[in-house]
């Protein structure tokens, strides 16, 4: 019986695809690779790799402890490589303006009630529930993909990450 090998990418091992243009502009496809983006990012920068109106997907290079973040809407986080712990706190009071899109940093450790934590490895996806505070911790460099909205922390550097 054939043994199939499933190919996932990682920071250390990935092979980027390509666009073969026939009659178009490669920029129209905004083609990038999450591992390449993470390799070029600073720890916990939130670099957009996909944008659809107000919605964004951000690549995060997880390394050590992040700041704490809060958000007024649900978000999700998908571990693409490595191992990342996510810790949650229910803040005693709202920590940023209601209704603002995307995740927001907060200074220091939020006062509030511990909600729990999750430990994510490759392929694991977690909910980042609205109105909670969370932070990431990674003992070794890891890669996350965040489903969120375009917010104050979203970095757009398309010319340097996309095929053109």
């Amino acid at each position: 019986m054939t043994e199939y090998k499933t190919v996932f990418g990682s920071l250390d091992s990935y092979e980027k695809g390509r666009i073969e243009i026939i009659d178009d502009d490669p920029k129209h496809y905004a083609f990038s690779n999450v591992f390449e983006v993470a390799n070029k990012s600073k720890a916990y920068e939130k670099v957009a790799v996909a944008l659809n109106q107000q919605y964004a997907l951000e690549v995060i290079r997880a390394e050590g402890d992040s700041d704490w973040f809060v958000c007024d809407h649900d978000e999700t986080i998908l571990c693409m490589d490595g191992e990342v712990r996510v810790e949650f706190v229910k803040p005693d009071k709202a920590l940023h303006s209601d209704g603002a899109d995307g995740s927001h940093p907060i200074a220091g450790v939020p006062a509030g009630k511990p909600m729990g934590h999750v430990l994510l490895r490759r392929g694991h996806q977690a909910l980042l529930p609205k109105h909670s505070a969370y932070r990431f911790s990674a003992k070794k460099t890891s890669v996350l993909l965040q489903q969120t909205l375009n917010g104050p922390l979203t970095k757009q550097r398309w010319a340097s990450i996309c095929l053109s």
Partner: protein
Amino acid sequence: MSTTDTTVKSSPANEHGYKSFELGGFKFHRDEFFVHVTWPTGTHLMSVDTFLRALQRDCAWNFFYGTVNFDHVIGTINHYGNVDLFAGKFNDAYRTAELDHLENFPSEQILGTFREMLADWTNAGYDPFASPAETAAPWGVKNGDNTAAITRQRVAATRMVGVKGDEKIRSDESGYPVNRMFADVPQDEPEVHIEPGFESEIAAFNLFAYLSRSDVTWNPSVVSVVKESLYCPTTEEYILPVVHGNDRVEWFIQLSDFISWDVQDRDSGSPRAKVIMKAGDVAAMPADIRHQGYSPKRSMLLVWENNSADLPALIASGKAPTYPINF
């Protein structure tokens, strides 16, 4: 109050055992190998395999986003409440020869006919959602049915799979064994520690393991929702059975393995690009293209959609761009 006529117009079984169907001026007839489609200005023949796999997805997706081309002639356009059924609309030669034809139907009417056609024309053992390597063939005279395969419940999480009260994760016990091509995918689940009172808030699951247990191909299903942002991952093997014409920008994130996409102009079908995606690649599909994917080995693809009902009109009017990013 007006009511929609959802009566299915069908005729008794023909010499091959299959019913024939009518939708407005369109007529559909099946024999052992082919589907015959006729309309007031033309006729068309499709392999029953190709036709049923496209028909299955059009039914399950409630006509999806934009255009579902069954092939280079036949297809549907979703207007979200009503649906165009067309022949030759997106084919330059048919339009030039004035052989193209289009009729609009309430969604319930066309869905009712399509579902009955799918049920009557799908024989026992044939699963139009499955990889061709994992199903019996659709050929021959009428031979039973496969209701369970064609009426699968589509996954549609409201927050995320695994959240309390939401869609469940997959397991052997729930009837989702690991697919033969994903036997090497780790099945470990994340460690989840929840303080009392937050059982509905803290959740995590193994998306890759979840996808490794999918029993269908080319069938995006919603696993997480952030307002109108939908993660719709899917497992792909062989060829996307439809050519999807976009009415909005959508994004692909290749989670594993490899897919090659043929991208054409949405209206003319003229080739524009080939997009070759490997694990970790991200690419947009612009709002004015049609695309068809080829996956040599079963792969995991994250389709990311903006579900906003306003987008098609905004893009058609030029108020929203056809391309996602200007750089």
